């Protein structure tokens, strides 16, 4: 039975000339797991919101939306609130109350449940989600992943028949994201809840989705099964980056593959590789004769504690950063990655240890030496438009010829047309670039980047990665902390693992991921100990595997 449907739906935002959605007709059957994907601004979130009239964007709507066969305007708001549960992107902002229990019952209170009903439902839900230890906690004691599970639980208490999710894992670290997606899979399989999810992180979603719908510029491009989608997009120039890496590897071999044979996860890739004979060129050792770069920043025996009574976040940490490298610092949540970056940036002062810049001890940074790109690029801006921000910054640091330099950078990064916009009106990728310009304006030698890929779609991620890679080639030293293994594997030159307040290992990116068994890329997990030479990235496979297509 169809539970959600649209018929020739178009939508145009006020003052926009091009519609955000054009003539969309889709049907979602009960119990389906549907993934909506596409680049930012392709209209997928708009579509999701149109199903909730109370929070739908303003604009001109044509065509009809249906819920259980009835036009949406005939569904009462109460039924809509109960039956269509919606989870949003930011885990923090969705929470209204200040403790977990109050937040869980918020929706039920709105719909007038009695105390006995609430008590019973909460008991059930807390057991299912394992929220027991959290029940009496304040919201600000929870991690991002816990917050997002709480949001999901508080929606599920209303017993919705459809879950609409708008990039629910974009702000989570990979482990929390996986846990969240597994929870969705359970809800779909064990309770038959229909799921419609908008997401950029497709590696985990492709294997469990029953359908994938691809949008581009408000137009529905494809509506098909995940495997068919791989086949359709395998040849597409930009949309390709949405596909799981195992599928992309397969497509390197079989350009015209049969949909049902395409592997979507590690297990399937390994099975496929078993029956395959792959030849490879032994990778030539990178000439170690190249000039050893000189260290630009040395940290020795650094300790950091937030307060006297809390355990040390960084303890006896040594780290050397070389000139012109892109160092990625990876590690699990709460290992102190961001703290380390703040210590390097001088925001936090280490209680013990020393930091040397080109052999000289650092007491206080001059702003020309080090710059910082925060996790949330919105925080970078304190002026109304991005151009004003740059001028303000240039004035502060007494930059000569600021106008020329600002325009040069704006043109180089391709966002010159946005310079008079308010920073909050920019998309995630654009904002990231704008903040990057701001941090480069003072011509720093070291750039610190905190978690740059959070919430970016694959295309913006690639654009950002390549941009920073060019800057590194031009001589900038970049230190980045991230959860994004695939991103580090593709772009960083060296990788460090932070564990228990120390850097446990620092190696060239390739060696680093090659030697890891669990903390490594999907492709490495798929190809290690297989018949083929193990690779870390698709790029590497392309380079050293001698791919012979049987077709």
């Amino acid at each position: 039975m169809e539970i959600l449907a649209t018929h020739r739906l178009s939508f145009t935002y006020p003052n926009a000339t091009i519609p955000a959605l054009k003539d969309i007709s889709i049907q979602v059957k009960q119990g389906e797991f549907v993934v909506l994907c596409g680049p930012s601004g392709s209209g997928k979130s708009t579509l999701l919101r149109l199903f909730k009239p109370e929070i739908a964007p303003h604009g001109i709507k044509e065509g009809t939306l249906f819920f259980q066969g009835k036009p949406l305007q005939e569904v009462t708001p109460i039924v809509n609130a109960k039956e269509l549960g919606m989870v949003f992107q930011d885990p923090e902002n969705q929470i209204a109350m200040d403790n977990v229990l109050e937040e869980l019952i918020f929706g039920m209170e709105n719909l007038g449940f009695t105390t006995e009903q609430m008590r019973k439902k909460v008991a059930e839900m807390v057991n299912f989600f394992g929220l027991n230890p959290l029940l009496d906690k304040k919201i600000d004691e929870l991690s991002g992943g816990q917050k997002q599970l709480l949001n999901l639980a508080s929606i599920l208490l209303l017993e919705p028949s459809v879950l609409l999710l708008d990039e629910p894992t974009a702000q989570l670290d990979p482990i929390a994201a996986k846990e969240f997606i597994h929870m969705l899979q359970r809800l779909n399989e064990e309770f038959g809840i229909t799921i419609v999810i908008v997401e950029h992180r497709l590696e985990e979603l492709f294997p469990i989705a029953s359908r994938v719908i691809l949008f581009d510029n408000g137009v529905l491009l494809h509506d098909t099964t995940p495997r068919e989608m791989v086949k359709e997009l395998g040849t597409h120039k930009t949309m390709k980056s949405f596909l799981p890496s195992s599928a992309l590897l397969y497509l390197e071999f079989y350009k015209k593959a049969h949909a049902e044979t395409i592997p979507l996860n590690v297990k399937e890739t390994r099975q496929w590789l078993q029956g395959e004979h792959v030849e490879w060129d032994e990778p030539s050792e990178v000439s170690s004769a190249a000039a050893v770069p000189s260290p630009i920043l040395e940290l020795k025996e650094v300790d950091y504690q937030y307060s006297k009574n809390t355990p040390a976040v960084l303890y006896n940490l040594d780290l050397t950063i070389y000139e012109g490298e892109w160092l990625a610092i990876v590690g699990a949540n709460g290992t102190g990655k961001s703290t380390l970056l703040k210590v390097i940036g001088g925001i936090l002062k280490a209680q013990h240890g020393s930091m040397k810049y080109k052999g000289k001890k650092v007491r206080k940074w001059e702003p020309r030496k080090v710059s910082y790109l925060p996790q949330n690029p919105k925080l970078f801006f304190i002026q109304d438009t991005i151009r004003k921000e740059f001028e303000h910054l240039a004035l502060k640091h007494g930059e000569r010829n600021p106008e020329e330099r600002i325009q040069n950078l704006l043109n180089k990064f391709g966002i010159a047309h946005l310079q008079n916009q308010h920073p909050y009106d920019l998309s995630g990728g654009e904002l990231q670039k704008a903040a990057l310009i701001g941090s480069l304006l003072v011509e720093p030698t070291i750039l610190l980047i905190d978690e740059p890929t959070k919430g970016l779609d694959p295309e913006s991620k690639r654009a950002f990665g390549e941009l920073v890679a060019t800057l590194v080639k031009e001589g900038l030293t970049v230190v980045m902390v991230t959860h994004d293994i695939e991103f580090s594997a593709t772009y960083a030159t060296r990788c460090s693992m932070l564990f228990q307040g120390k850097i446990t290992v620092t190696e060239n990116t390739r060696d680093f991921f090659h030697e890891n068994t669990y903390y490594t890329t999907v492709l490495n997990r798929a190809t290690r100990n297989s018949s083929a030479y193990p690779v870390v990235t698709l790029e590497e496979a392309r380079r050293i595997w001698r791919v012979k297509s049987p077709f």
Partner: protein
Amino acid sequence: MVRGFRSFHPIILLLYYLFAMAALMLYQHPMFLALATVAILLMNFMLDGGLELRKWRAMILIMAVLTLVLTPFFNQRGNHLLFYLFEKQVYLEAIWQGVMISLTLVCILTLFLTFNLVITPDKFVFLFSKIMPQWALLTMLSLRFVPLLRKRLLEIGDVQSIKGFSLKTGSVKGRAQSGMLFLQTLLTWSLEESIQTADSMTARGYGLGKRSKYQPYYMKKRDWLAFAFLLVSGSLVLFGWWLGDGVLTLLPVLEPVWLSGREWLYWILFFMMIGFPIWTEGKEMVKWKFLRRIG
């Protein structure tokens, strides 16, 4: 202790505090007030081992001593002239009055310390929501914003300090300018983010119909018993005040401070009522000790 004083229904607890406050203000008699001071101090120790009391003890002591010393100095009425101080008469009546005022102060302040321990914020919001449900919701929503705004302002400060805009260094004018910009950013940013909070509240049906309120507390048998006890002892204590048994007459003739006859009965009743937390909490403490010995 799950079944101690704190486990009573918040309304019962509030009722106790109302009665206790009233009794402390009405019973202006050194013997009664001294008893209350002992009882309330004991209650403080039973509830949290005197931790909260230790934080406030200096201030309470200073206030008590000041009133004790200053009252006789300003109150110049009485029959028993004791001595002259700086050419002012000091009367016995005024000294007794000073004792009573400072004991009342100590009692009320220390009672309020236990109030904070017993009526926790969630119980407070519960009581509040009984009277004004809309305002209680608003309070809950704003409670969430306090740590959030604090965290955000810190984040802004961190990021901006690397850019060279800091509140800690530079000229006063520059710092003030940065501060204003930070606050402005905090405001725009938070407004922007709270649109999402509003969306999420609307998506969960906020404002569609009459809201119900989850009742985390309900009246149990022991709550009704406590209610009856407080009502009976409270009215008797009020009756005693009406009879004049708990008030020390200072003028025109100073009454003997030591109690006599029926006054002792009210003294015990007063102690029973003020000491209600001591019975309920003490019973549990004894039980624990006893149980542990068996184990």
